[in-house]
């Protein structure tokens, strides 16, 4: 860091005992100074950009959560009659009405189920790609990434078609259930449709980190496990899976967090009972225009998401394993 003396610089200031020492100290000093300038050049632009377009907006939102709503929506003036015009009203409203807590719990359950189903679907895909001959990996990975390149709403829309009342899936299902004495089932506009949409949209987020992890595994480990008598199942659960945990947690965080705040999928695929926390936030900002309360909901959503992601990071923290530190 410029301006502060590293131990090496202090050593260089002291009388050098030999020419070699002096030379070494000079090089170290030059490197550390140079590193200071380089550091500033490299970290400065992203720091500045994210400070302005991420940190400040969040700060504004935190302040907004303590402000009064404006008479016609938005925010009331922050200073009135020379005094700060702040309140805890929006927080009180959130804390006292259990309906908001229930909405949060429901959203967490949806996001957790999404993560689990994504993991189950993504693991075989990532594993097969990682174990394929190198010349096919590009193509196989491309095949996973391609749907991810198609628009998010297109992918949701696809399920509107598949689960719609006129679709083959719906009619087929009802053709089977009908003779068995069941009422006709509606697939679209249901919790089931919301979950399918959530899993479908987030699946690539799980495959990418899993593949990146699995691809680095040394196949010799599996050979060694086999030589020691482990069967395929044991090789998976005792070698591959534990080693892939950083990838699993990375994927879980990449799926869970966006899934928690989503509003478009319940909007499009869900029924009236499938409102999630994201829908309420959207409503507060664009329809009811109660910005302080919308800010409170957004802050709580973020705290919940970060707490759970922090937990995942803690669980996945690097540890020394039987195979050395990862």
């Amino acid at each position, binding site marked *: 860091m410029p301006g502060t003396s590293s131990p090496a610089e202090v050593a260089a200031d002291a009388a050098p005992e030999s020419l070699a020492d002096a030379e070494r100290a000079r090089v170290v000093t030059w490197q550390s100074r140079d590193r200071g300038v*380089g550091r500033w050049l*490299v970290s400065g632009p992203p720091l500045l950009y994210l400070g302005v377009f991420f940190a400040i907006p969040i700060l*504004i*939102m935190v302040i907004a959560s303590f402000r009064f709503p404006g008479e016609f929506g938005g925010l009331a003036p922050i200073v009135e009659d020379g005094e700060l015009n702040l309140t805890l009203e929006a927080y009180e409203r959130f804390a006292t009405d259990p309906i908001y807590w229930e909405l949060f719990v429901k959203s967490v359950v949806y996001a957790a189920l999404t993560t689990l189903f994504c993991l189950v679907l993504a693991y075989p895909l990532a594993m097969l790609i990682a174990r394929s001959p190198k010349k096919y990996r590009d193509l196989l990975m491309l095949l996973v990434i391609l749907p991810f390149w198609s628009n998010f709403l297109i992918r949701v829309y696809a399920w509107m078609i598949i689960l719609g009342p006129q679709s083959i899936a719906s009619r087929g299902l009802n053709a089977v259930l009908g003779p068995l004495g069941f009422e006709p089932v509606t697939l679209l506009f249901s919790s089931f449709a919301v979950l399918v949409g959530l899993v479908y949209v987030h699946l690539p987020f799980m495959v990418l980190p899993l593949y990146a992890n699995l691809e680095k595994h040394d196949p010799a480990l599996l050979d060694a496990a086999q030589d020691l008598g482990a069967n*395929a199942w044991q090789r998976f659960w005792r070698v591959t899976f534990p080693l892939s945990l950083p990838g699993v947690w990375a994927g879980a965080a990449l799926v869970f967090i966006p899934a928690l705040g989503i*509003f478009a999928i319940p909007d499009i695929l869900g029924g009236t009972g499938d409102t999630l926390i994201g829908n309420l*936030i959207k409503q507060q900002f664009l329809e009811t225009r109660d910005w302080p309360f919308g800010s409170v909901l957004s802050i709580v959503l973020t705290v919940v*998401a970060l707490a759970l992601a922090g937990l995942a990071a803690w669980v996945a923290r690097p540890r020394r394993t039987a195979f050395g530190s990862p």
Partner: protein
Amino acid sequence: MKRPSWLLYAAAIVGYLFLYIPLAIVVVYSFNDSRLNAEWVGFTFDWYRKLAANDEMIQAAVNSLVIATVTAFAATVLGTMAGFAMHRYRSRVLPILVLTPIAIPEILMGVSLLLFFVLLNLTLGIVSVMLAHIAFCIGFVAIVVRSRLAGMDESLTEAARDCGATPAQAFRLVTLPLIMPAVIAGALMAFTLSIDDFVITFFTAGAGTQTLPLVIYSMIKISVTPEVNAVSTLLMLLTLVLIVLASKLAPGTLRSS
């Protein structure tokens, strides 16, 4: 190396089918001569003709492409810097600023940027959408770049330095070529995230500006029409071309050997 078992093949095939059948259905019905996305009636190009005459849709497509291109470029430069800085220097602030936009739900960025732009009296439109997209894409690029750097043999850079390269030379001649696949993968990711983004765009675009996701959203909220299938098919075709182009330009982009 052992060949994967048939069970793994079967599970992976289920995964691929799950990924592709829905998209295939969208494509097939875009050529169907019926307003309902239900039964195959006959082949037609009518939905594409309708699309070509839809000025709102064309304007939205142009907006989306402009935004995604600028975003991918800016986010890749800033994200590579951030990824490198995070790998190289022990900073406390940078990782927090870079990683939290990813570690928070998208909607929070959308609504906080909405508040920010409105309080700044910045007119919502293409520029505000770009500024927002760059902010959330930096972190994705940085993660890809940093994990590539973490997997890189540190002694290569040290060797370059020992041979007399300046830090800038070591970066340009040794580190950058080695992390190039990650940088390009990051750029592709940023482009995808931008063109795919609905949530942040929804809050920061304002009433007058349309992007493809916004148009598609309002269309499927009102009614289901094969026109959406047609625009979806074209968009998928575009991304197909882009990815093939990218892997031609930078062989090994998607291979992290």
